[in-house]
């Protein structure tokens, strides 16, 4: 009796929609960033490609590190990007696309990005408010200072929430 070959492990789907969204936004941010000679686009492509390879790895431990290269590339591009009319908005959209790409984990059931829409709507709303404020508020150091203060307060609030997750708990009504 010949031994039957071991079953081939199926490659997980790359979930192309969220990947394309991330690739486009990161590439465009790379194009608008201060890197010369299209290096920004190349950087974005490399970051996304490395993340894709990590995510497709059969090892779950390796796949868990997939967000790191994408975030590193996005942070590098955002830090070097000059202030422009649509650059801020594009940076925010890149952040949202990154979150949608996170939700489309091939190790989990399909449709993660759609199921994550309620979660994504809150950062998207905050991004819209921030961008419209930045667009319509007069330029100067004072609004930036106010915005910085507000964000610092937000950070403290987030840190408190992270420290006590029971804040999210809601007591069930008893009949």
């Amino acid at each position, binding site marked *: 009796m010949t031994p039957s070959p071991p079953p081939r492990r199926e490659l997980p789907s790359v979930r192309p929609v969220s990947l394309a969204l991330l690739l486009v936004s990161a590439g465009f941010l790379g194009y608008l960033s201060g890197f010369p000679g299209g290096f920004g686009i190349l950087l974005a492509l490399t970051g996304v490609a490395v993340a894709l390879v990590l995510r497709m790895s059969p090892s779950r431990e390796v796949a868990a590190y997939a967000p790191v290269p994408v975030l590193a590339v996005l942070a590098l591009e955002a830090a070097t990007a000059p202030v422009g009319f649509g650059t*801020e908005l594009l*940076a925010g959209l890149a952040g949202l696309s990154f979150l949608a790409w996170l939700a489309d984990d091939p190790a989990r059931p399909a449709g993660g*990005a759609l199921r994550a829409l309620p979660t994504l709507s809150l950062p998207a709303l905050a991004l819209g408010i921030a961008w419209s404020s930045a667009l319509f508020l007069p330029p100067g150091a004072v609004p930036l200072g106010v915005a910085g203060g507000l964000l610092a307060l937000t950070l403290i609030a987030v840190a408190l929430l992270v420290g006590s997750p029971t804040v999210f708990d809601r007591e069930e009504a008893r009949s």
Partner: protein
Amino acid sequence: MSPPPSPALRWRPLAPFLLAVGAALLIAAVVTRNPVPLFLGLPLLLAPVAAGVAGPRSAPPVRVDLRVEGSGGEVRLEGRVATERGLDARDLLVEVARPPSLREAADTQFDRSPTALRFRTDWTAPEPTIAEVDVPTVLWRDPMGLVEREAVSNAVPLVVTRYPPELLRIGAVHLERTTPLPGETHSRRVGESGEFHGIRLARPDDPPRQINWRATARAGRPLANEYDLDKTGDILILIDARPTSLGRVLDERLFAIVRAAALGLADSFLSIKARVGLGVFGEFLDVVPLSTGRTHRIRIETALRRAHLSSVSAPAERCAVAARRSFPTGLTTVVFSSLANDPADDVSPYLRRRGFPVVVLSPSPLPILPVTSLLSAKDEELAARITRLVRRNRVARAWQEAPTIDWDNYWSLGQFVDFVRRPRIRRAG
């Protein structure tokens, strides 16, 4: 009594990572006076909080249905997790804990739909076993993998029992009855399934089928038939749970095999309405008194699941004295013992002297002895032969006191079943 606290929301490692990157981008924006990093960091800072808010605000209730399938050494656990309150079952994760005595045969398979999650996992039992399968842990995890929360269910653990199949055909064994007046034993079956014994005054709880209407008409008072049941008898299963020279690991393994076989034996005799008693002798004798019926089966199963190997070796006579206090003499007794200790420590001679006809079923440690890699193949073969001879000699010495069956194929008890199905087991000396 207050309900148990609901499991709290847990942050996954990705959440603090996003918060750290978001904070770094915020600082970079303030330092460089460039709002672009700030706009990138804003979604990263808010996503973990949004995931916590958008998910269930308390431990989500789920309904878990579990069942165990398979036969022999195959164990297949199938389950279905149904969600409530509109929770999407595709966001659920199920972690199935494998009992230590079972081995994994294949990866767990999942079949997900928005309302339910089905899973199936295949294990194998290398030896007879009684294993408790815990209720799988069900986690809700947000699609981005930032937060998770443990779901609550009211499912109960399952018990997997696997024992040699020959025990199922043990039915025709002749067992001694140990009631003081055997001829007056009431039938344990309803109706005329036993031998007719006599007529007595009817009691209010007698079924109509048991009333002897002709005798009632003749006597002018209600009379009922009384039946005996020749087939039933009594048996005591006694497990030697004392430590042996084999060491803790092998002792534990043999003890697990013995517990499964004891449950199989009890199952078989209970199915023919025999009364079964159980004794586990470690430092002292823990007993389940003689009885029959389904409830008694659960009683024995629970006692066997809770039984553990003793760390102290007690004198064998203590077992016989305690057995005499708890059980009537003349009771057919099956003793499970590995016979790995000195013959002076055997419990069978002491039991025989106190009037218990004993059959020893001895699980051999040879099949599970670890192979030492220090010896050459030839020496290894020689060592194995010597070990087999020592074992054979030990069993022969035990035979001088009571019939002893060397049980070396754990998935077969044919030799034992054939022996006990002989017309009469050797009586007490």
